[in-house]
């Protein structure tokens, strides 16, 4: 019902506008009665109103416009000439249409009895019949029974939504209207109806998109100026000035939000076309498909919406052509005959995510690999080193198509790469996941808007650079000591051990063609582009800011390093880093793929375990499974309190009992030189226990071959980890030995 109301509201706004145009056209038409252009324009307007009113079941409106249309079509085809009388009748028709539209707006129907449709129809018909009698004998006309206008419907109009409705009957039928509607009408005189308030029309205005764009631009400037003003007035002694600046801040923020909203449109606009596309394709391809759509009202910037149309349609086509099988195949595979295609849109961390999921045959990585090798997209050697996920994403490579036969729907070898290019052009990403026999999900991520984005501002040398938040994963700060331990150089490539995984490092200074600065500490911005993840080493991290993305000149567009530029609060220009561009130009892709492989291998294979390796009892090594570690904490010794014989610290608004690992596994507690203790927080049956150790050495993925050597209370045994014998801590025993466990 809401949908209906929306459609009706749109219809009203559009019709009122069209009618205003119509008035002007008709008056102009009187001056130049033989202008085909004007006549066609008038005809189209009435035709549109007729079509929509038929569709919305506004029968009186439809009947009226139908007769008017017939008259206009004669005029347009030159069968009749416009004279004052006809103009008068047409203007009367326009007024009546207006009155009916008002009635629709006020009552929801066109059945209000006070609008005199019949007499206008009668006048129009009389005019029509007048020609029928004096007409220059067109065959159609002579066959026409007097009093009907049906047969003069021009051929072009046969496809109108409801040609079946007999216009003859409707004027006669005095519409035994819905009583509820009639009661609602306050029976204004016909003339008043015309002037009655147009709530819906007044409530919305059509605005030129260019104007909106320039408003967005201006608001961007305003936001920047505000930033400048705020920076200058910070700590100023002039209280009034500071207040004014704060007001400016508020107003500018709200204005920005409001302006951005004007450009936001629900994704439903694109989706509304999908049911038809899916239906037509399903028929064409012999599929039976149930289309499910979720998240109609997810909004995004209209320019992005436009750009999304093509790729989405293509993905939907693909899902039908390559994804969902024919009903016979589906039933043979033990699935219901009707396939399911789901479109889902939602907001997630400042981005819009659109998922296209089908429950079809899925994509077989082996087929992809074979075709990719055959087409020379990759070499056999490369293929053997690729992850299934990477293989799937090969379908986005140019010149790749696995359709065994070329249909006129898809499978011409162009497409997916274009989809990806188009999505990346608007700052989005696309990703495929598929399980053979179960289905495929294609996930498209796009920013909410292009104009203003949150970004991390970093400093390198004297300049500042912005990294789009969308590419940001985390920040890692390594002090000198950690740096030595965590950063390794593998054949010239610096790598960071981050929670047991290897992360390729790229120095921003080097990307910018400068010398890598020598410093003890290291600040790493972990960034992600497509499925590549790497660490960008920067000098300084400033803060996150909303920045206005501005294009850069054509001389710089070929540089892969920059995505654009922005103006900072102090008025200086800062370049926006293009993370995918940097990744490709620095060729970190390969390293990342390798790193990702280690990651997946570790996760997939069952015989390796992620272990926390630690030092305890003065240089002895011990290890415990990483999954048993909730957190790593450092406490000042002065924080440790005693309760009875037990030690504890206040932790997260509770008490964390401490167990010293060394005595618990039969070692001698080492003497600490500093006043900090390292604690592994372990959760045991929803209770937290802090295990005091000397220090954390590393996190490793290792195949644990347990040996009975060293087995004792609190120790399961030992294993060789990183070429050294390491005790395997029996956490349960340690916890229960200390009388803290269950």
């Amino acid at each position, binding site marked *: 019902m809401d949908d209906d109301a929306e459609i009706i509201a749109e219809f009203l706004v559009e019709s009122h506008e069209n009618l205003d145009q119509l008035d002007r056209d008709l008056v102009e038409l009187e001056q130049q009665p033989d202008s085909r252009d004007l006549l066609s324009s008038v005809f189209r307007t009435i035709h549109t109103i007729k079509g929509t009113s038929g569709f919305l079941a506004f029968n009186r409106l439809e009947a009226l416009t139908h007769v008017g249309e017939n008259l206009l079509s004669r005029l347009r085809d030159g069968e009749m000439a416009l004279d004052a009388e006809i103009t008068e009748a047409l203007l009367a028709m326009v007024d009546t249409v207006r009155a009916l539209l008002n009635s629709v707006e006020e009552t929801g129907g066109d059945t209000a009895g006070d609008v005199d449709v019949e007499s206008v129809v009668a006048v129009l018909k009389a005019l029509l019949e007048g020609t029928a009698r004096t007409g220059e004998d067109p065959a159609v006309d002579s066959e026409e029974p007097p009093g009907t206008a049906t047969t003069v419907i021009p051929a072009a109009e046969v496809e109108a939504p409801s040609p079946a409705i007999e216009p003859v009957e409707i004027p006669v039928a005095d519409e035994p209207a819905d009583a509820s509607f009639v009661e609602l009408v306050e029976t204004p005189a016909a003339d008043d109806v015309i002037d009655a308030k147009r709530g819906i029309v007044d409530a919305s205005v059509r605005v030129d998109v260019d104007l909106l764009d320039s408003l967005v*631009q201006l608001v*961007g*400037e305003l936001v*920047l100026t505000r930033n400048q003003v705020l920076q200058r007035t910070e700590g100023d002694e002039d209280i009034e000035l500071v207040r004014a600046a704060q007001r400016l801040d508020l107003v500018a923020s709200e204005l920005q939000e409001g302006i951005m909203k004007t450009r936001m449109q629900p994704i439903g606009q694109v989706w509304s076309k999908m049911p038809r596309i899916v239906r037509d394709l399903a028929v064409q391809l012999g599929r039976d498909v149930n289309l499910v759509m979720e998240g109609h009202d997810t909004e995004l910037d209209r320019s992005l919406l436009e750009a999304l149309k093509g790729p989405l349609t293509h993905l939907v086509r693909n899902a039908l052509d390559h994804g969902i099988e024919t009903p016979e195949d589906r039933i043979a595979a033990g699935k219901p005959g009707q396939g399911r295609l789901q479109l889902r849109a939602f907001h997630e961390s400042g981005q819009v995510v659109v998922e296209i999921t089908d429950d079809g045959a899925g994509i077989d990585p082996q087929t992809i690999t074979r075709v990719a090798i055959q087409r020379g997209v990759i070499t056999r050697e490369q293929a053997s080193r690729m992850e299934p996920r990477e293989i799937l994403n090969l379908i986005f490579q140019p010149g790749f198509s696995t359709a065994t036969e070329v249909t006129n729907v898809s499978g011409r070898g162009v497409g997916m790469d274009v989809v990806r290019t188009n999505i990346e052009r608007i700052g989005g990403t696309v990703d495929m996941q598929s399980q053979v026999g179960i289905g495929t999900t294609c996930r498209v991520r796009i920013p909410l808007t292009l104009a203003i984005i949150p970004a991390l501002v970093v400093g390198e040398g004297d*300049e500042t650079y912005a990294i789009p938040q969308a590419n940001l994963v985390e920040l890692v700060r390594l002090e000198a000591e950690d740096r030595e331990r965590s950063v390794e150089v593998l054949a010239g490539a610096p790598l960071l051990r981050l929670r047991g995984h290897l992360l390729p490092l790229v120095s921003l200074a080097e*990307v*910018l*063609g*400068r010398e890598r600065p020598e410093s003890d500490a290291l600040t790493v911005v972990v960034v992600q582009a497509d499925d590549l993840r790497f660490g960008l080493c920067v000098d300084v991290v400033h803060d996150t800011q909303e920045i206005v993305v*501005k*294009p*850069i*000149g*054509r*001389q*710089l*567009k*070929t*540089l892969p*390093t*920059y995505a654009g*530029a922005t*103006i900072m609060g102090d*008025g*200086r*220009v*800062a*370049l926006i880093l293009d993370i995918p561009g940097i990744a490709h130009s620095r060729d970190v892709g390969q390293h990342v793929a390798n790193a990702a492989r280690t990651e997946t291998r570790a996760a997939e294979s069952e015989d390796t375990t992620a272990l926390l390796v630690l030092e305890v009892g003065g240089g002895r090594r011990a290890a415990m499974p990483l999954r048993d570690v909730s957190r790593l904490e450092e406490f000042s010794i002065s924080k440790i309190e005693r309760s009875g014989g037990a030690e504890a610290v206040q932790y997260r608004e509770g008490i964390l009992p401490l167990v010293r690992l060394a005595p618990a596994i039969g070692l001698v507690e080492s003497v600490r030189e500093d006043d900090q203790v390292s604690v592994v927080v372990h959760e045991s049956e929803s209770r937290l226990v802090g295990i005091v150790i000397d220090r954390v050495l590393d996190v490793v993925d290792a195949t644990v071959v347990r040996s009975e050597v060293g087995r004792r209370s609190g120790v399961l045994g030992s294993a060789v980890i990183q070429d050294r014998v390491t005790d395997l801590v029996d956490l349960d025993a340690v916890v229960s030995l200390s009388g803290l466990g269950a």
Partner: protein
Amino acid sequence: MDHSAQYCTFWVDGLFFGVAVSEVQEVLRYQQLTAVPAAPEAIQGLINLRGQIVTALDLRCRLGLAARPADALPMNVIVRSRGEVVSLLVDDIGDVITVDTTTGGGLELEPAPANVPSIVQDVLVGVIPLPDAILLVLDADRAADVTAVPETTGGTA
């Protein structure tokens, strides 16, 4: 036919250049520049022109002339080029001159002399021999095209 044309003039390393006033948006004093690492050499940086980001291009470098002394601050001649706005960094700004061929007599645009270095010739529409100087009329579009500069051997369009 109107035989007069107006040129905005400026000096670059002793050369007297002119750009048709219709192509010039404005002339500015030195503006703070944001360097663009890894950009073509002629790109000196970006300037903030009332919220618009404008690429600043050093004409000395673009034309293969000697570098500007470190203490001399360049001026900006902001020109419109292929729908964008580009700043040409020059040494000094001259007057706007009107070259009137109907009264000046013989002051017509001539092709650049053949012995002018090709890198300079490439960006010229032609030269006008004024009584007291030779005006090099610059083609702003070609001057602003720098992506192709490093390899080109002088392929004018």
